[in-house]
């Protein structure tokens, strides 16, 4: 008798499971729906050249936001990432024009990311200063230094060197930089899911006190997530120099809202209410598709600003409502 009961599908559980799957993978479905819509509205959307462009821009943003994902997942916030990218972008441009080779200039750009990341991590992790204000200030400093390099204006780069060749390299319609991004995200996924580091990040967001009490080096972990964020942003900055063939000191502004929107929208998938790398990758793709598609449809920048703001609202609402305890959701609001 009990056997037959067990074998009967329970409609309630079935519906709940269906809803769970729908919520969990909603971003996949949205992504597919958006791509389909644009392909129908604008046939040139699916041209190989456009796909390549979308993938390259998604890859650069994706690398930049990889580190931010974990900072937000750890319950902190980083609003200096885009200025770190701008600084590394300008540093590379300036050094290349000063006659340095691309590899060496890229190393210096990377070092800038390490420096700002360590500074953020030290101030937030060790000194426990409020993350928002700290990264606002370090970001402002990085922006200022980026402007200083070009004396307030942008810097043209004479040649895009080895990084430029890397950006032009592609396998069919798949650019090499997209492969790099996928590899980085795969490593990120492994670290986040399989290593204890990943579990600690989410534990810190839930209850930092408990993490400290349990003997986990929370300060070092905070330092590490900010360091990763700085390095990731610096790599993106180096790629931007080659991609734009110039250093743009004010490039950060355009990535600020995108970064946080991406990370929070990414929190909608797989781990509901928790930013994670796979979610970020999907959201980056969605945003790149939206930007490219709406551009083909003739939208202007400000219309996209409104769209992104609305998406951020939706993303954060879902993330917060998806979490079990809304009290812990005051991200970075810790004083």
């Amino acid at each position, binding site marked *: 008798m009990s056997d037959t009961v067990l074998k009967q599908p329970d409609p309630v559980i079935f519906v709940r499971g269906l809803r769970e799957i729908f919520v969990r993978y909603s971003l996949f479905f949205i992504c597919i729906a958006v791509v389909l819509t644009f392909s129908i509205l604008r046939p040139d959307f699916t041209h190989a050249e456009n796909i390549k462009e979308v993938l390259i821009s998604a890859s650069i943003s994706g690398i930049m936001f990889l580190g931010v994902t974990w900072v937000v997942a750890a319950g902190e916030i980083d609003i200096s990432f885009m200025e770190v990218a701008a600084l590394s972008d300008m540093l590379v441009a300036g050094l290349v024009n000063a006659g340095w080779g691309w590899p060496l200039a890229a190393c210096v750009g990377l070092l800038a990311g390490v420096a700002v990341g360590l500074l953020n991590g030290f*101030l937030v992790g060790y000194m426990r200063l409020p993350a928002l204000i700290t990264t606002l*200030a370090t970001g402002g400093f990085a922006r200022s230094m980026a402007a200083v390099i070009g004396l307030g204006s942008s810097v043209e780069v004479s040649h895009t060197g080895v990084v430029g060749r890397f950006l032009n390299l592609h396998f069919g319609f798949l650019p090499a930089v997209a492969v790099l991004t996928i590899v980085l995200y795969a490593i990120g996924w492994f670290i986040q899911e399989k290593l204890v580091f990943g579990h600690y990040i989410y534990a810190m967001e839930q209850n930092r006190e408990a993490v400290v009490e349990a003997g986990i080096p929370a300060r070092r972990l905070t330092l590490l997530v900010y360091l990763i964020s700085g390095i990731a942003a610096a790599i993106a900055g180096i790629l931007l120099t080659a991609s734009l063939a110039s250093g743009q000191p004010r490039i950060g502004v355009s990535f600020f809202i995108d970064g946080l929107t991406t990370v929070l929208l990414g929190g909608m998938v797989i781990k509901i209410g928790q930013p994670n790398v796979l979610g970020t990758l999907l959201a980056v793709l969605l945003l790149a598709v939206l930007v490219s598609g709406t551009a083909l449809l003739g939208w202007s920048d400000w219309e996209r600003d409104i769209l992104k703001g609305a998406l951020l609202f939706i993303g954060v609402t879902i993330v917060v409502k998806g979490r079990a305890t809304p009290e812990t959701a005051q991200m970075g609001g810790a004083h």
Partner: protein
Amino acid sequence: MNRALGIRLGAFLAMVLVIGAVFGLLSPQFLSQNNIAAIFRHMSADGIAGLGLTFVIVVRRFDLSFPGIAALGAMTTGQLIALGYPLFPSILGGITLGAACGIINGLAISVLMLPDIVTTIAMGSIAYGLSFIYSNGATISDNFMESGILDINDQKIAYLDEPIFFMLVLYVFAWIVLHRSRFGRAFYATGENPRAALFSGVHVRFYVIAAFVLTSATAVWAGILHCAEAGQADPSAGDGFLTPAFASVYLGAALFGFASVPATFAGTLLISMMLNGFTLLSVPYYYSDAIISIVLISAIAFFDPRFAVILQRIINMRSLTGAYK
């Protein structure tokens, strides 16, 4: 006046004197009457955004949307003037729209319990985007001459330039609200311990919303002052507000122990003096972000309670050794 406040006030005056002396020596113009007026003028626009932000910091929240809201409000005022509306309703229209954005911020944060930082970033992006809606981003300057908006920048009231006069009025008004009224206590109570405040009969949600509304409204006013000075409204009206506003609130809080209206005034004054001084020394504008960032970082490091404990220990030690003598 108690002793701790005396020390803090002394520290503030010492900083004013040191900054004044250093820049006065490096550039004799610094202490001229015209330049001092210029410092206050700078405070009256950029510094006024910090005044509103004080309320948000007092209720222990963050607002990153006010630069975008300032742009939207300023463009709205510009558009209303261009459409031929008189000056006062136009300004009121801009400020009302800004306040409406503040209400949305406040509702999302206190009722929907969304995180403040992300909500206000989203709101800032939407408001900034909407500021392009009237003219697609082009500057608006129709009717500016006739409407009298330029007079806000040029005329004087009671021997003071109008922007400075309005700044003082706003500061006095904010001081009365925050420090001489029941409402002010409730703002602090909401920030210190919302649960205790709620059980004491404080309408916590109302005060959070009110704080965001005040920030948005003052930011719009600051944006309008920018437009009056430039003689045109454009969407970059709020661009430079974010970091200086935070820096002035936190620098003031560092000096006086907690965020308050006089503290923000002090912070704004110091920052305006420094920026003005560096400009006189012909330090390029793009260094100003770095200067403010360094000030901001130092301010929050000093604002840190542990630092206050160390300071208290030093003071106690002094008084102890004094007692032994």
